[in-house]
């Protein structure tokens, strides 16, 4: 716990620096764009220049999304009296897991879920449990498929649902043992999704 909080502080500081770097790159490329717009006539490479600036802007956007997710991870071990926002934790995890999923040619989709749902767990614990379910699903799903995750309220509890593959196929994966261990330690209920498809994680409700 102390380790995670320490690493979180270090990472939060680094992501702040990264945001400053991205902000500087954006302003510098923006200035070049401004100057180009003012005097592109007669500049032989104007189109190539514009293309380069567009790539820079796209990469800054990409970097911004990543730093936002990393910054969320940095603060995820912190305990909040209100509990963790489940949707935010799952959104950060899904964002950071896309690359791993893409290596297996699986597309992760986070359904526009119920916002504001909270749990007594810390965000890092939510991410740990959902990450374990994701590991199992990514092993069991065929390549070229899509995996939908959603955050919902069921019976007053915040739940995270992965809609595929079949529950029994998930239980047969080597990663299931880790999921069972993490969820038992954190008091998370695990059950099959509708029609025996996917898995539902029911998270403990926040303290009143």
């Amino acid at each position, binding site marked *: 716990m102390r380790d995670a909080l320490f690493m979180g502080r270090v990472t939060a500081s680094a992501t702040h620096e990264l*945001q*400053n770097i991205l902000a500087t790159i954006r302003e510098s490329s923006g200035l070049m764009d401004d100057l180009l717009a*003012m005097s592109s006539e007669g500049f032989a490479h104007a189109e190539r220049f514009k293309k380069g600036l567009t790539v820079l802007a796209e990469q800054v956007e990409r970097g911004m999304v990543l730093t936002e997710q990393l910054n969320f991870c940095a603060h995820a071990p912190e305990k909040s009296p209100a509990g963790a926002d489940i949707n935010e934790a799952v959104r950060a995890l899904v964002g950071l897991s896309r690359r791993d999923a893409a290596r297996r040619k699986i597309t992760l989709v986070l359904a526009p879920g119920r916002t504001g749902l909270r749990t007594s767990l810390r965000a890092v614990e939510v991410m740990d449990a959902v990450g374990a379910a994701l590991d199992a699903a990514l092993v069991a799903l065929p390549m070229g498929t899509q995996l939908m995750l959603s955050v919902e309220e069921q019976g007053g509890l915040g739940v995270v649902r992965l809609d595929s593959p079949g529950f029994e196929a998930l239980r047969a994966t080597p990663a299931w043992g880790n999921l069972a261990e993490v969820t038992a330690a954190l008091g998370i209920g695990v059950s099959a999704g509708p029609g025996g498809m996917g898995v539902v994680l029911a998270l403990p409700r926040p303290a009143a």
Partner: protein
Amino acid sequence: MNAKDWKILLVDDEREFITTLAERLELRGIPARVAFDGESALEAIAAEEPHVVILDVLMPGIKGLEVLERVKRTNPLVQVLLLTGHGSTRDGIEGMRLGAYDYMMKPLNIDTLIEKMESAIDYAKKAATLAGKTDGQ
């Protein structure tokens, strides 16, 4: 008021970022001064009473929120737009409580920044009228 008559102060210890932002504003006809720390920002505010201060929250020395508090005590009509990162939105919210006009996250969108500056200047003019004070323009 025309944008060329706006008095804008940009404050951030990220020198490349803030000087480039000033240059981009000037290309759009908006004059902007820069300060690289809280101390020199307070001096510039006392000397020039800008309409809007764009103020980074995390700086070495006097922090952005402390600069904001002091400005609101001495020059309450000066409008402050805070710059925060994703990890410091709490500072942005706290800044609003302390009297900041608004806050924005880095990296900035310059068009949004200009819209917010214009809106802050309109607000300051109305506040000055209500306070029975004019800025002579």
